[in-house]
């Protein structure tokens, strides 16, 4: 039984004993490429982002190619996802936020498809890398802050001044508010990244248990894995949803300036 674990080790890297659960997150360069002194190689991460974008584009274009009044199955899926995000934006930002709908929809579909692609065996989960989620979150953060200043000008700074606070306390509280605002990109990105990475590591660890415990004991671990895969699919959807809805909330803060 131990020998099977070692055998599995061959395919999954790692030093000794059980297969390395972190091996799945390894970035591999598919094409070497250097641009202006930066390593801009096309990696497996980039490959899966391209796949996700192609899938989303194909799905939406193909599903809506007829645009019939009585939707086909595929068309209903596309319409449901549209309605889902549209009502999310309308509820959280208001009707004047609908002009940011394309962005939120793209973001939601991108994260959702990346998360879901990661659930297929032998694929790579792009969102399990903090640099990817942080880049997304930082872009959202910068964009939302710029929108805030563009809409309200210098008055946007009032966002950091809480109401009804004694004058003496203001300097301290403003600093705390600013730090609280600056934590947004970090908490937004860490949440998605941690959920995806923790889930996939768990799956891998229990997968190793199935092999290591062999024919007699492996079933318990296998049953757990099946249940956990279901939970992971839920998490994959939920995290994409949370990512999109927090973007909406931040947008709402920037447009309407209240906590």
């Amino acid at each position, binding site marked *: 039984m131990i020998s099977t674990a070692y055998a599995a080790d061959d395919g999954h890297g790692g030093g000794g004993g059980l297969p390395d659960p972190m091996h799945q997150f390894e970035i591999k360069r598919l094409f070497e490429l250097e641009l202006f002194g930066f390593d801009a190689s096309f990696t497996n991460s980039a490959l899966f982002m391209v796949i996700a974008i192609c899938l989303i584009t194909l799905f939406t274009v193909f599903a809506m190619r007829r645009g019939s009044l009585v939707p086909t199955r595929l068309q209903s899926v596309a319409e449901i996802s549209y309605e889902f995000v549209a009502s999310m934006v309308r509820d959280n930002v208001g009707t004047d936020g609908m002009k940011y709908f394309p962005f939120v929809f793209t973001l939601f579909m991108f994260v959702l498809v990346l998360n879901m692609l990661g659930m297929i065996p032998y694929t790579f989960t792009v969102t399990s890398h903090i640099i990817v989620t942080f880049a997304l979150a930082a872009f959202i953060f910068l964009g939302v802050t710029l929108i805030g200043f563009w809409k309200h000008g210098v008055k946007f700074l009032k966002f950091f001044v809480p109401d009804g606070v004694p004058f003496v306390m203001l300097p301290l509280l403003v600093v*705390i508010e600013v730090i609280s605002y600056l934590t947004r990109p970090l*908490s937004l990105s860490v949440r998605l990244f941690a959920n995806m990475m923790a889930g996939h590591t768990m799956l891998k660890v229990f997968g190793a248990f199935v092999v290591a415990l062999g024919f007699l004991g492996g079933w318990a671990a296998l049953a757990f894995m099946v249940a956990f895969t279901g939970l992971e699919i839920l998490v994959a959807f939920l*995290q994409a949803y949370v990512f999109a809805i927090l973007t909406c909330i931040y947008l709402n803060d920037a447009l309407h300036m209240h906590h």
Partner: protein
Amino acid sequence: MAGAENQSGRHHNDRDTQDIRQRLDALEGKLEAARVRHAPPPERESRGRAMGQALRLATELVAGVVVGGFIGWALDGLFGTKPFLMLVFLLLGAAAGILNVIRTAKQMQAEAPVPKNLKPVDDDDDD
């Protein structure tokens, strides 16, 4: 507008609708019972959601401290006051983290549906 036959017909109709309504009601009851029997225990999903919320609160708290510490560290590098500003900003960051947690929790509370049957928790250990 209605003759005698019509009247009786209407009466008949009324009885029919009543009958149908009764059967519908009975069916509704049976359906509800079947639904309750076949509904998956809400355990897993609600537990997954609760885990998500807990993780969200935890990241808010940690993110505050990390960002505060980082700002302090950067300012220290700028002014050459190692390590005092970092200490101050770590504390401020912790305060910001707690502020975020309170805000998030308030928002979650506003969103969460009121649980129907609250009962004392006797089995709290993980399975």
